[in-house]
């Protein structure tokens, strides 16, 4: 299981380099990085705080990783999710999938992001000039998840 929760930033490039180092069986690496946007879900934001359910978040991400490994021939897989206060431009989440051929890595990374959005216990609270506000879940996210 390669799932990490942390308040510190992550380095997508260092993780890709670490996962591929010394291997000659990997043909494809797909990475997804999600970043905090100034144009948030509730409007223009100055910061956001990610609340999470410690213990369940790790377990749920671990369950998603297991599902992805069962559905695609992955050579390795990593999910890193941050919590705490972030400002626009900060990285929030990283998913990396490694496989022999490209389609498995693309699909697994996409699947993990779609599932993570709707089932990993994280909640965003956005700060703006008018105060702070919880982000509402998006219907599209549920719909995307149900396509898999």
């Amino acid at each position, binding site marked *: 299981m390669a799932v990490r929760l942390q308040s510190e930033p992550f380095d997508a490039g260092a993780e890709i380099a670490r996962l591929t180092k010394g291997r000659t069986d990997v043909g494809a690496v797909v990475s997804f990085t999600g970043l905090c946007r100034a144009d948030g879900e509730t409007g223009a934001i100055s910061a956001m705080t990610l609340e999470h359910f410690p*213990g369940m978040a790790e377990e749920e991400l671990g369950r998603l990783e297991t599902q992805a490994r069962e559905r695609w021939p992955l050579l390795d897989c990593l999910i890193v999710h941050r919590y705490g206060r972030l400002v626009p431009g900060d990285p929030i989440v990283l998913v990396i999938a490694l496989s022999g051929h490209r389609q498995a890595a693309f699909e697994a990374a996409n699947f993990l992001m779609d599932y993570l*959005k709707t*089932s990993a*216990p994280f909640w965003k609270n956005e700060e703006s000039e008018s105060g702070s506000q*919880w982000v*509402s879940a998006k219907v599209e996210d549920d719909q995307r998840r149900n396509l898999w």
Partner: protein
Amino acid sequence: MKLRYFAWVRERVGRGEEERDIPPDVGSIADLVAFLKTQGEEYEAAFENERVVRAAIDRIHVKPNASILGAQEIAFFPPMTGG
């Protein structure tokens, strides 16, 4: 029973967790929500729109009709917005 609350459910209830005695006739998550709503207006506010609030028993997502028999910890929270 240990109860935990997150995000705006936590804010409305006014605490992140609590220990609470649950009457023996409370068998499901839906029963538990109905019971909590009799325990004060903070719970009424948190579960105002019951269908929106999600639940987990011992850190696993469950539906409202799930049995709470044998549960150690039950958590309530809004739909997830991570990623």
